[in-house]
């Protein structure tokens, strides 16, 4: 039976992006009061694992790094069908960049007995670096295929996948264990069901702190992050209003000229 790991992230609800503010001192997002949801692209990663579980049998572990509140998102993944949930949560993990996040997640994956495939969404909706998946692979010393849109062959331990590449695609044959980051074209994620939620009643996310994970504090969180955010600011999309006066013909001509000037029409 396959052992599949799905890396997930609790992100501020993308539908509420208007409410997200930035802390000017720390240059990090102020997540307070913004409801957390499962990172949209991670749903496709989880669905890939759930489909494999249904087709061939698999044990799915969902792993995440985040604040204690992220446990509810891990639980949600278990309600969707994951067998086990692991949340890496400690104040020391706070302020991590993609590198430190990948390191911490890889340490969590190494805690598991074994793994055949690791699925990640290709990017998070808040950070959107697309680096975490490949860096996890690097820390695990495993091959990685990014932007996977189709799993073509999954028999045995050599899989063939199709992945986005510029305007075309790559067909990649890869030896397991391997890491895959996935796009939204891979599948159609299932939604939560009431009976799935009931089945998850007895499942609880295992929460591991710095000590339990057994990692060096200098390699995680802000301390372990080589990335320096030089600046971060909120942009405002202001709409300009131009009142057009005149007869109907004059107004139509004015609109035509405005559209032409903006390049909207030739």
């Amino acid at each position, binding site marked *: 039976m396959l052992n599949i790991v799905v890396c997930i992230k609790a992100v501020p609800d993308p539908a509420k992006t208007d409410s997200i503010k930035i802390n000017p001192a720390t240059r990090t997002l102020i997540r307070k009061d913004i409801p957390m949801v499962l990172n949209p692209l991670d749903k496709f990663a989880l669905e890939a694992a759930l489909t494999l579980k249904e087709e061939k049998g698999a044990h799915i572990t969902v792993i995440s790094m985040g604040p204690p509140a992220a446990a*509810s998102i891990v*639980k*949600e993944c278990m309600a969707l069908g994951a067998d086990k949930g692991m949340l890496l949560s400690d104040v020391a993990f706070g302020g991590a960049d993609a590198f430190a996040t990948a390191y911490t997640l890889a340490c969590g994956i190494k805690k598991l007995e074994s793994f055949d495939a690791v699925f990640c969404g290709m990017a998070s909706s808040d950070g959107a670096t697309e680096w975490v998946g490949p860096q996890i692979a690097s820390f695990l010393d495993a091959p990685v295929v990014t932007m996977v849109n189709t799993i073509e062959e999954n028999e045995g331990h050599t899989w063939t996948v199709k992945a986005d590449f510029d305007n075309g695609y790559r067909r990649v044959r890869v030896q397991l264990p391997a890491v895959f980051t996935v796009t939204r074209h891979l599948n159609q994620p299932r939604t*939560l*069901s*009431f*009976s799935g939620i*009931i089945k998850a009643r007895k499942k609880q996310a295992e929460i591991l702190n710095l000590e339990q994970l057994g990692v060096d504090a200098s390699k995680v969180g802000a301390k372990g992050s080589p990335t320096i955010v030089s600046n971060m600011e909120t942009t405002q999309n202001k709409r300009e*209003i131009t009142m057009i006066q005149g007869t109907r013909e004059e107004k139509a001509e004015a609109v035509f000229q405005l559209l032409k000037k903006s390049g909207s029409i030739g």
Partner: protein
Amino acid sequence: MIDFTFTEEQEMFRKAAREFAETKIAPRVEEMEKTGEVNADVVKALGAAEMMAVTIPEEFGGLGLGYTARLIALEEIARVNVATAMMLQVFALGIEPFILFGNDEQKKKYLPGLATGEFLATAAVTEATGGSDPTGIRTSYKKEGDDYIVNGRKCFITNAHVANVLVILAKDEDNPKSFSAFIVEKGMEGFKATHVEHKVGFRGCNTGELAFENLKIPAANLLGAEGKGLAVTMSAIGEIGRGGMVGCALGLHTACLEASIKFASERILYGKPIAKLATIQNKIAEMKIDLEAGRLLGYRAASMQDAGQRCSNEYAVAKYHTTETCQKAAKMAVDIHGGYGCMEEYAVSRYYRDAAVVGPSAGTSDIMKVIVARWAMS
């Protein structure tokens, strides 16, 4: 301290219901509005998403989640389409008498199919003589051998043409003070779904009339004890019917508020969004206050129901408050939208029509006041 928070599991139910409504119901709303007819895909989706199974005990194929979960599901579905929520709430109205009064054989025969959506239910009590005073009904029955023969008509029956398992109320032909409830299956000899109503709102939710002409019902389909039919139907109406309308009203009210906030934030007047104007904020605040109060009333009653306590009076209070304020909210939502609020392209025009139907369904506000006054003076 009283804990007013939902459990983690209840929050997940809300998320599941919202995802379901937004992905499976929302794409069908336009079509339902156009045709006014029940959408078969929506009914199928409700079954697949286990929405009919919520209150049915697990031993009979349901989820056994109770009434708070039901209210959450209805609220989320009504937020997207109150007509679908109404259809679902009346399925439960037809299911509840089986749960409360069905014998083991009846439960085994019907509840598993009702849980999956194979059977679709309704309760038929209302007649031209009225719905809130069921003792005024004229539909009658008489015993003939092993069967009951029923004659009469029912009107304003939600799901009349959709349901294939119905719980009906009739009075004894020889004893007008004796009422009994029966299980009727569509297709039984003498059963006919007749006139279809065309409502101003709730388009996509079927309402119509039923005719029973020498309808032959086997004795095994007597639900509860003979002569105790009022208890069978009224227990469902008092708690399930009113509770269901609370869910419909809360969801519709939320939709009105959300649409108003969105529009007011985008509509520019005097160089700034109208949401910055005190007069608009006043309306938004009123809508929010009413909604918060309605949620407290509704979920209190639902939690009492989950605890096995009588709560039909508490539901009457919640039903009155939520349906009245929902109508008020729909009016304010249309007002905030100005001229756009009268255009069919804007959802608030539908909300306004739907709100008109929320009021009288499962008992008018005036009847709710009668019930609440009796409670207060008892």
